[in-house]
């Protein structure tokens, strides 16, 4: 690493958008993703999955599979040495199904062999004798108790009510609706993959894996392997996107077990079809809401009933439900509420974390309600939202007071001020790519109708309900070179470049070395809940500040200057009251300072039975305005433009923030008009990118983005997390725009062509 004297100012400090350190390797194909990792003499692993939604396993016959040349081992539930189940919140999910399978795709056995094709043939040769059991697909039957428990823990994973204020208030204006959301897939590009290296003698294992939270994985894996946590060492394999789908364990325990069983390295790499079955998804939901308001349009009371289908295992369903019920009021003032929410167990695919985490569902409902309320009160969509916009100091329906910066009205006004598209209805110049249906040439431009819609959201940041959510980072300064160590997972969001920016700003250096992301340091918590900028950014900042104190003490003692007078100016340490000035590299020559910092956020509370308690850490806000063109005859939608203003606190890396805004909107657009996992009797019918539609470059419109920078005093760097808000209210904004174009009451996403054009 060069320590030569450099000209000019340091590039790439906070507020800049320097090139990310993994950027060029990623463009060259030389960046190592988890699926690119290999080892001498490795075996391929593969997983046998249940073809039935609910069945008892009577017998598993492995004899034919064992006879296939190249098969090294086959394992089932009998071979799990430790805890037979795992899970993020409750450990209710089997490593392999032992007696009962509860969803199509549940792991039953795994093989290790010399070639993927050998694995495929071995899996095909395993004979499992199943006795069918009655499946539970209807969430209402999980709630009303009419279906026997499909799991010893029962069919209701969590019920949470919120009872606030006047329970009998009836507004002068009352609007109600029922809203439904289909199951969305995270559809990260980089499929699940891992490489496990066994320690000699079966005493431990090293796992290279694409995940969101190394330490949580390690704890769950170690328990299942019956090993002490320190005997399981995890290193992050390059992560090809996550969006919540890597928060739960998938192939981790299987890969380690196969490696320990064979004494050889084992790789598992899921196919796309297997990935659809192998990770949790966004909860399908049905939400009924009734709003009570004054004739002027002020919200007085909300009523809501929310039902989230958690699928076969609990995953994070209880936390997703918490988010859904506590965000159902939206970013609007409201004192009185009657809310009842359920997350239930069914024989569908397990659901858990996806970007937006319960708030996506709540927002689709409350924003549909706001438009109904606007119509009932004779207001436009902007007026009704401004009238009710939440502010700092407001009390939520949980009793929690909003202490964060809360620029809701500012988000709406700044969005409204962004220019509407100058593209005429039906596109410009007759280019079919600008029309609904695109290159299919199906649209008659003269029939196209344009609509405009709004969505506004509130989103909690970090973890909730009394969880001690912390992050650890270590900073080392030696001979002018700074190195940083943390276990914060880089999934693509750009934490690696942000960490370098923080160190450059605090310590006045150009070069910042990043050490491997692994479990040899304390936990950084999960890369989820829009939390790493706040939590791990805070940890890196804290560690760098401690090192700076040590440096100032050292220089102060050498030069007989009170360290409090010292500061960093460019690349130099200076005496703010004197003439001393020396470069950081000279100041740190021959010495080494290493400091570790743990960033915790303020404590939060669990909700009581009435849904009261300060359960969330912090909040961020966002507004979206969508413009769409609709072909009402074929039911096709072309999103023409999205405008947005987002409460970001401080844009520490504006280019990264813009990337989160645009990328999040693309996922919101997908949920609005195309993305849904389709089931028949618990079987996924579209587990491929051919049949599960994702937005392409032709589907994404231009995004006009405005970042509202009001530093949040609660945030270590003034910056709020920015990853989730873009996904949340973009969906209802697009649906509202479609409603505006065609005048129909669309209540379900994704909006299907038949919802638009059939009577």
């Amino acid at each position, binding site marked *: 690493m060069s320590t030569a004297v450099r000209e000019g100012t340091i590039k790439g400090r906070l507020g800049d958008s320097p090139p990310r350190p993994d950027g060029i390797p990623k463009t060259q194909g030389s960046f190592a993703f988890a699926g690119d990792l290999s080892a001498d003499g490795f075996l391929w692993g593969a997983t046998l999955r249940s073809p039935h939604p609910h069945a008892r396993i009577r017998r598993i016959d492995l004899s034919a599979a064992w006879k296939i040349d190249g098969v090294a081992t086959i394992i089932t539930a009998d071979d799990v040495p430790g805890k037979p189940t795992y899970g993020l919140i409750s450990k209710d999910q089997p490593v392999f199904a032992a007696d009962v399978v509860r969803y199509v795709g549940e792991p039953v056995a795994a093989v290790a062999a010399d070639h993927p094709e050998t694995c495929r043939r071995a899996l095909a040769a395993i004979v499992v004798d199943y006795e069918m059991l009655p499946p539970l697909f209807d969430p209402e039957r999980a709630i009303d108790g009419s279906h026997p428990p499909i799991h010893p823990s029962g069919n209701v994973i969590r019920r949470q009510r919120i009872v606030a204020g006047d329970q009998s208030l009836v507004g002068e204006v009352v609007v109600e609706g029922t809203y439904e959301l289909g199951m969305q897939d995270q559809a990260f590009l980089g499929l699940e993959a891992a490489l496990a290296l066994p320690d000699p003698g079966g005493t431990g294992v090293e796992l290279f894996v694409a995940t969101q939270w190394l330490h949580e994985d390690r704890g769950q894996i170690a328990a299942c392997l019956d090993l002490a946590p320190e005997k399981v060492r995890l290193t992050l394999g390059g992560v090809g996107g996550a969006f919540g789908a890597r928060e739960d364990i998938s192939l981790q325990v299987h890969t380690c077990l196969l490696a320990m069983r064979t004494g050889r390295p084992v790789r598992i790499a899921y196919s796309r079809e297997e990935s659809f079955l192998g990770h949790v998804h966004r909860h399908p939901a049905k939400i009924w809401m009734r709003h009570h308001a004054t004739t002027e349009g002020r919200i007085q009371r909300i009523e809501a009933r929310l039902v989230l289908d958690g699928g076969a295992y609990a995953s994070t369903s209880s936390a997703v439900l918490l988010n859904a019920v506590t965000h159902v009021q939206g970013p609007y003032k409201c004192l009185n509420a009657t809310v009842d929410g359920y997350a239930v167990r069914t024989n569908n695919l397990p659901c858990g974390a996806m970007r937006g985490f319960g708030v996506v569902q709540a927002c689709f409902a409350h924003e549909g309600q706001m438009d109904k309320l606007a119509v009932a009160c004779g207001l436009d969509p902007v007026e009704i939202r401004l009238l009710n916009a939440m502010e700092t100091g407001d009390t939520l329906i949980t009793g929690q007071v909003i202490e964060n910066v809360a620029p809701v009205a500012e988000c709406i006004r700044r969005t409204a001020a962004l220019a509407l598209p100058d593209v005429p209805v039906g596109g410009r110049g007759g280019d079919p790519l600008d029309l609904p249906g695109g290159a299919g040439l199906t649209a008659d431009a003269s029939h196209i109708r344009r609509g405009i819609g709004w969505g506004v959201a509130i989103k909690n940041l970090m973890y909730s309900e009394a969880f001690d959510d912390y992050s650890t980072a270590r900073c080392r300064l030696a001979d002018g070179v700074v190195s940083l160590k943390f276990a914060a997972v880089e999934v693509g969001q750009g934490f690696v470049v942000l960490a370098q920016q923080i160190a450059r700003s605090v310590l006045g250096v150009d070069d910042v070395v990043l050490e491997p992301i692994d479990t040899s340091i304390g936990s950084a918590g999960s890369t989820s809940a829009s939390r790493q900028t706040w939590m791990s950014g805070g940890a890196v900042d804290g560690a760098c500040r401690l090192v700076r104190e040590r440096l100032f003490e050292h220089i102060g003692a050498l030069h007989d200057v009170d360290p409090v007078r010292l500061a960093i100016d460019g690349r130099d340490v200076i005496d703010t009251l004197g003439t001393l000035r020396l470069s950081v590299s000279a100041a740190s020559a021959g010495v080494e300072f290493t400091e570790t910092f743990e960033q915790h956020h303020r404590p939060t509370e669990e909700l009581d039975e009435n849904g009261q308690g300060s359960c969330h850490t912090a909040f961020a806000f966002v507004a979206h305005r969508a413009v769409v063109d609709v072909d009402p005859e074929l039911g096709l939608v072309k999103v023409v433009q999205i405008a947005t203003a987002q409460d970001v606190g401080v844009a520490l890396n504006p280019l990264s923030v813009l990337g989160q805004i645009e990328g999040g909107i693309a996922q919101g657009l997908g949920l609005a008009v195309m993305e849904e996992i389709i089931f028949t009797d618990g079987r996924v019918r579209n587990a*491929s990118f051919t049949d599960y539609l994702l937005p392409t470059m032709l589907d994404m419109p231009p995004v006009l983005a405005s970042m509202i920078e009001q530093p949040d005093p609660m945030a270590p760097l003034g910056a709020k997390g920015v990853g989730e808000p873009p996904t949340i209210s973009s969906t209802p904004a697009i649906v509202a725009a479609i409603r505006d174009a065609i005048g129909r009451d669309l209540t379900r996403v994704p909006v299907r062509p038949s919802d638009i054009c059939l009577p």
Partner: protein
Amino acid sequence: MAENEAYVLHVNGSRREVADAWLGESLLYVLRERLGLLGSKAACEQGECGSCSVLLDDELVCSCLVLAASAVGQTVVTIEGIAPHGSPSDVQRAFVECGAVQCGFCTPGLIMAAHALLERTPQPTGSEIREELSGNICRCTGYGRIIEAVQRVAVWRAIGP
């Protein structure tokens, strides 16, 4: 397995021997697992996402859809072959500068597609960019920065960086 054979591929200007390979293997699998060229990525394995894009006799193809043994006698160019490792191409530099890279899994395929587009059409319109790159799925960026990166390269090539 019995259905194996040895053959020779021409990849990135080199003659590469493939020894004793199952004939069911895709070009993508052979590039990655037998020739150690890991830049081409497997994300959908049915030609929908473009992450495995390579040039086969100068045509952009999804290498997951091509049987490796059928590529005998053709020239293959992968992401590793479009620019020397030490000096990234203008397309690669523009992707990083413009924020077109997040997780990076789709990136090699998109670089191949953008490279092919700009070789054929040095000054593409916005509509041409969107149509030509619509076969490549990116789940992170929402595409805005990718379009900007391609436009930036077009400017560099017209008037210099």
